[in-house]
């Protein structure tokens, strides 16, 4: 035990020396940690993100501001405690310059402080957007290339309001994001909420009881938030219960390029809201989607698009600073400009460092080759700011 302790101390000391001497080596790579879910039922989402990060790396020629860069992937196993542990490892052991990724709000909330405060490392969320971080927990070291949880359902709610939908039944998983999503749709949808269920997350897969309640409540529409594997299950059971064709379904984050190959025709015609759609007509997006499809034979999802943007955002700062990312305040100032070609089209950062951006309504359709995908049918919100930025102490 004693010798092991000694050994650890030596390694730690050596590592400190090595890390200390890093800036002297001009061509040492910029290190980016990437935390996502690479195992278990939600691994398909992590894989989509990894593919997009690798594509971004390819498009950048493996360099940012003249320096090579490397990505260290870590698997959060869909668990907040593991995500926190892996984030700490990236900061303390791998000494990464940036950390990006994070699918899940609860994982991000657990990992935020160890990275941004104790580790003083810049974190770019490529998906999770818990409302707390947009408001009172906002942090100079935190940037988002996604959205605040409440925003996407707000866009959906606004659209339903404009279409004259009178009543909704709401369902989501019982965790940080699920609560934000339902709060979001209630901000803009002013009709009647006839029922609301937060189901056990992530272990409840059988929705028979809730579907029976919906049948009895007879709403004009059902609004759901069930990302990844859960969305597949919900849609299947919704159809099996005979509700498809009777009560229309509206969703956020529950029908996408990851779930569509499993949902297939069951998803056809279902509407959802999103800040990025694969058919947005800007050049960066056309290149991203075409190259992704050519390489993998499937469409990318917003998880991938936001991950691609996260790498491009880092690259824009490294480019402006000619590869020297050692001064964090300079890096933050450059990142705040969002001076890069986002695949969603150009956006600006708000004071809380969340994007001010458009939200679109999308419909699940078949493309000319018969592959399931989503297409944009309307713009629900233009240059939307999240409802929390005024609570953020950064101005």
């Amino acid at each position, binding site marked *: 035990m004693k010798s092991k302790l000694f050994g650890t101390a030596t390694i730690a000391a050596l590592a400190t020396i090595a890390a200390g001497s890093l800036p002297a080596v001009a061509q040492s790579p910029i290190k980016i940690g990437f935390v996502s879910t*690479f*195992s*278990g*039922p939600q*691994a*398909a989402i992590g*894989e989509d993100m990894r593919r997009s990060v690798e594509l971004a790396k390819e498009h950048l020629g493996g360099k940012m501001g003249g320096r090579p860069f490397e990505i260290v992937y870590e698997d959060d196993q869909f668990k907040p405690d593991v995500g926190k542990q892996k984030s700490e490892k990236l900061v303390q052991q791998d000494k990464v310059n940036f950390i990006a990724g994070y699918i899940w709000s609860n994982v991000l909330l657990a990992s935020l402080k160890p990275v941004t405060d104790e580790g003083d490392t810049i974190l770019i969320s490529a998906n999770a957007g818990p409302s707390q971080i947009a408001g009172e927990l906002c942090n100079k070291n935190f940037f988002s290339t996604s959205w605040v949880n409440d925003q996407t359902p707000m866009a959906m709610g606004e659209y339903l309001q404009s279409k004259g939908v009178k009543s909704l039944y709401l369902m989501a998983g*019982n965790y940080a994001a699920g*609560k934000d999503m339902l709060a979001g749709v209630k901000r803009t949808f002013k009709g009647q909420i006839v029922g*609301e*269920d*937060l*189901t*056990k997350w992530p*272990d*409840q*897969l*059988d929705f*028979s*009881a*809730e579907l*029976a*309640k919906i*049948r*009895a409540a007879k709403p004009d529409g059902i609004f759901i938030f069930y990302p990844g*594997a859960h969305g*597949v*299950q919900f849609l*299947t*059971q919704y159809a*099996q*219960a*005979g509700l498809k064709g009777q009560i229309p379904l509206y969703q956020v984050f529950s029908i996408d390029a990851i779930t569509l*190959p*499993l949902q297939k025709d069951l998803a056809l015609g279902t509407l959802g809201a999103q800040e990025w759609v694969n058919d947005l007509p800007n050049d960066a997006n056309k290149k991203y989607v075409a190259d992704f499809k050519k390489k993998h034979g499937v469409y990318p999802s917003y998880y991938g698009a936001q991950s691609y943007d996260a790498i491009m955002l880092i690259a824009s700062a490294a480019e402006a600073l000619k590869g020297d990312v050692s001064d964090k305040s300079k890096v933050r100032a450059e990142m705040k400009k969002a001076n890069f070609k986002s695949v969603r089209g150009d956006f600006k950062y708000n004071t809380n460092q969340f994007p001010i951006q458009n939200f679109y309504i999308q419909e699940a359709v078949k493309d000319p080759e018969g592959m399931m995908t989503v297409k944009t049918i309307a713009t629900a919100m233009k240059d939307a700011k999240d409802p929390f930025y005024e609570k953020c102490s950064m101005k």
Partner: protein
Amino acid sequence: MDYLLLQMLNGVQLGLLMFLLAAGLTLTFGIMDLVNLAHGSLYMMGAYIAWTTIGWTDSFVLGALLALPVIFLLGLVVEAVVARRLYVRNHLDQVLATFGLILFFNELVRVIWGPAGKSIAVPTFLNHTVEILPGVPYPAYRFAIIVVGAVVAVLLAWLVARTRIGMLIRAGASNRRMIGALGVNIELLFSLVFGLGAVFAGLAGLMAAPITSVKIGMGDDILILAFVIIVIGGIGSIKGAFIAAMVVGQIDIVGRAFLPDLLKTFLSASAASSAAPAISQVLVYIVMAGVLVWRPTGLFGQRQ
């Protein structure tokens, strides 16, 4: 009234599925004294193997029938390679080894079928709703699960109560050492029971697949409930497992269907909707604790 009936049917369907899983678990625990955490992996393997065989045959029923003997063989292999060595070891070793099996099977599935998960479509002849009472539609597939589950339960009851193997199983559950001393081929009996347990778990997995989809780790979540069921029912008792599964099925549905509305009568709507899932989650465990206080060996457990 219709709504209540619908919810009760949901509870029965869930209970029967849980019973299939718990039956094998209670037998291996009761007879071989083996804590088999990997029972959920057999549930998962059932679903994945069925996904493959259904793909081959293009028919849900044929595929399922083809998958069951494969799962039986898989059960025999697991028993011969791993489980047999664990019967004489203590529970801690068993937990460790069978937990290792879970990791092994999860990785195996990733290697063979990939990480993304699969879906099995509901067979077309069951892809509609039936009217169990006029004006009360119920998914035909879920109704079929109830029928199959009930048939299997009756078959199992007959097997345990009326056949020679069943006699040995019951004898094994109440006094393992004694039936060995009487010259019964224990090894064969153990293999058979393990294989049978695997078939039931696999059947539950493949029947659940069209409702929930086939994914890595699908058995791990449900296994905990299966353990709760065999503890409530009494370890080694098929009858206990059946009754406990029915009770747990109903509790689960009650917690999800009626608790939120009940809480809303004295809590604010938002407090009720976030408290209800938490409470319904622990409800099953409260019942288990209550049963254990009242009858420490479970409802139908053998007193020792």
